[in-house]
């Protein structure tokens, strides 16, 4: 199964471009989308989910045009949007039955399927309460359950870990790993560590464009040897920020530990070279001066 996106552009108006001539090939496995706000991640996901039409460009699923025939992908799509809502007066069973009807899932097994999904996201005990009374994390879990209702082959998760506590995030990552064997999973997150743990490949976006798409080690290699750490006086931090791309700082009594990226090595600071991470690479690649 493959999703081939060619020269996709989404122009909202004269001044606002969601995607600009965007091309990417997506195969089975987990693709993590990283990018600052406004990079076009949600626009790309909405176009793949068929709820937004591209201005120009093509999108093929196993050779079939999805822009012209959106129902082709809708049958096998699981989509968890970033800012979704629910009908507050329905309980979890009724809500999932409704989504099942939308997805064209029925039959006598439907109830069992819903039971298993609710059990999987640990909502069985609350399944008969109106969803309007659920917490943010519980709503997010019902969102994940609905995405899996139709045994999807293409799964799109836009910021799926928002509202989940640390333990839930760990479980969610495991769930994604289990699903990844026979699905295309596209997942966006601001939390780089989520992507780092789950994604087979990472696509970094900025200003509606694809900066790079590769396996994590290859992306990290781009900043290998350029990431440093040093301990400086608190007063010197501002100067370093002016000079270098500071990734992170941490206060230690009167000193501040500074992690930064430098092409030259910044010998005047006598820094130690440290192992680069995906976060370093992401910040390096999306930095304004880049």
């Amino acid at each position, binding site marked *: 199964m493959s999703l081939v996106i060619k020269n996709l552009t989404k122009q909202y108006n004269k001044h606002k471009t969601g995607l600009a001539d965007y091309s990417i090939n997506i195969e089975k496995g987990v693709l993590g989308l990283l990018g600052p706000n406004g990079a076009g991640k949600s626009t790309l996901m*909405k176009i793949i*989910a*068929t*709820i*937004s*039409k591209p201005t120009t460009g093509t999108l093929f699923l196993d050779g079939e045009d999805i822009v012209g025939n959106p*129902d082709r992908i*809708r*049958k096998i799509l699981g*989509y968890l*949007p970033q*800012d*979704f*809502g629910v*009908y*507050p*007066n*329905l309980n979890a069973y*009724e809500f999932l*039955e*409704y*989504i*099942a*009807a*939308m*997805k*064209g*899932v*029925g*039959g*006598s*097994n*439907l109830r*069992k*399927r819903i039971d*298993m999904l609710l*059990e*999987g*996201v*640990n*909502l069985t*005990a*609350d399944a008969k*309460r109106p969803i*309007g009374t*659920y*917490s943010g*994390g*519980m709503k997010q*879990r019902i969102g994940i359950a609905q995405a899996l209702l*139709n*045994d999807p082959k293409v799964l799109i998760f836009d910021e799926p870990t928002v509202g989940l506590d640390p*333990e*839930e995030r*760990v*479980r*969610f990552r495991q*769930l994604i790993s*289990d*699903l990844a064997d026979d699905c295309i999973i596209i997942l966006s997150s601001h939390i780089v560590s989520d992507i780092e743990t789950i994604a087979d490949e990472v696509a970094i976006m900025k200003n509606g464009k694809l900066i790079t798409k590769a396996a994590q080690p290859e992306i990290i290699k781009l900043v290998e040897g350029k990431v440093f750490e040093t301990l400086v006086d608190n007063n010197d931090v501002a100067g370093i920020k002016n000079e270098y791309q500071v990734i992170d700082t941490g206060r230690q009594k009167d000193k501040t530990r500074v992690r930064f990226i430098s092409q030259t090595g910044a010998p005047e600071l006598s820094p130690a070279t440290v192992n680069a991470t995906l976060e370093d690479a992401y910040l390096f690649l999306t930095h304004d001066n880049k």
Partner: protein
Amino acid sequence: MKYINSIIKADYLQRTRSYAFLITLAITFYAAYSFVPPPTASYTTLNVVGYKGVYNSAWVGYVSGMMTAIMLSMYGFFLVNGGIKKDIDTEVGLIIATTPITNFGYLLSKMLSNFLVLLTIAGCTFVVSIVMFFVRTSGSPFIFSNFLIPYSLFVLPAMLVISSLAVIAEVFLGRRSILQYIAFFFFFGILMANINQQKNETLAVFIDPFGVRTMTSSIKNHINIKYHEHIEGINLGFTFNSKRGFKTFEWNGIAITSVFLLSRLLWLIISFVLVYFSSFFFHRFDFKQSGNKKKKLKIDEPNTDGAMFAPTGINRALMPPLVTDYGILPFIKTELLLLIRKGSKWLWLLSIGVAISMLFAPVNISHAYILPALWFLQVTRWSEITTKEETNRLHYFTYASYKPLQRMLPAQLLAGIIIAVVLAAPLIARYAVMADGYAIINIISGAIFIVLLAGCLGIVSGGKKIFEIFFFLLTYTVTQNIPVADYLGAVKHDSHMAYIAVILAFNLFMLVVSFGVRSYKLRNV
């Protein structure tokens, strides 16, 4: 005062930057145009038996001002109502609650932003009325004060009263929109009846926020004295007449007395006092205190809030095989469930009671008064019929579902029509016994019409307000037996077939628009 100004400004901008407001403005322009009909038109907006006013600046300015005061009061309430609810839904209210603004300050800002919205619309009719003066008259001098006085003394107080009522309705009736609408429906009806029927002229002036009585009395007295007539009543609003001979009279506006000015001042004061009084009962977005017991969790209820996923996770291999079903019956079932659960159980009890009453009331009363009122009781159910996905931010799912246009939209409309027909069933049964097929067809096509209107206006405007306003106006005018507003065949028409064909044409038009616009929206989230 700085806070209040900012809230008024933000609130005003928020409301006016919407499709619903633009549509309202467009309708207002048309309405303002129709307030001053051409002399050859088959209707009048101020009907004095056997007489017609000469189109001078007083006539055009006062009729336009008075019609604006009445019509905008009628639908303005629906337009501006919901300002506090919006703050609750968006949770902006929680932020406001933590600021130093007083309850009165907040409610006053809501009232004034309501007022500004209505004033913007009234401003449009003011401009159109001046344009209409030059269109409809020739040779008559343009006197600006004849436009300024009615708009200042009729429209402004009326708009302030409506703005105030919208706020206090929200304070005392909370988020129960339907109760607010019913309360306003009765308030408006009773007020208008009292203004028209009050024998004591001075009292009539004082109980009239719209200034209608002062104007009609002035016209009546003018004709009675000048033409030695004994005219008792003057009809306001759109009155359709068969063409016949009229005598003309020239009227030059009202005499502004101190009693009239005092009555205007009184209504302004009442508006502010009502809002001040209501501020003592305002919840300030603290719903635990004001007792929304329904939403509180009971201690013994199961609650897995914060618990993680099941350790076993979701094993897709163990799931039962996927069975596809692309029919719309499951959709209709859920849409019916959503419609039934919308609103309180009391509303259902009331609706069922009213429906049953149609079995016993005279058939014509049931058809012309009870059925329109019963359907209007469902206004909040139907007004969200095609907007609830977006309101609840569920359209990301629904629009990405399989064939949403062919399956979801028909299911929504069918569920709405089923509710309308079921509620009308007692009356339909009586017509069935009477073997009156036309009446049954009229009721069913009326049910289809009102649900399609809700669906179409919801899809086009993206909100529920426009439909609520239309439905209120339709219901009010149907209960006044005005044939042109008769969407359910309650009034006698010259030709059954022509009437059915007209409603059918409207229904088809709305269906095409609904599907066309929804089709576009599905791919442009």
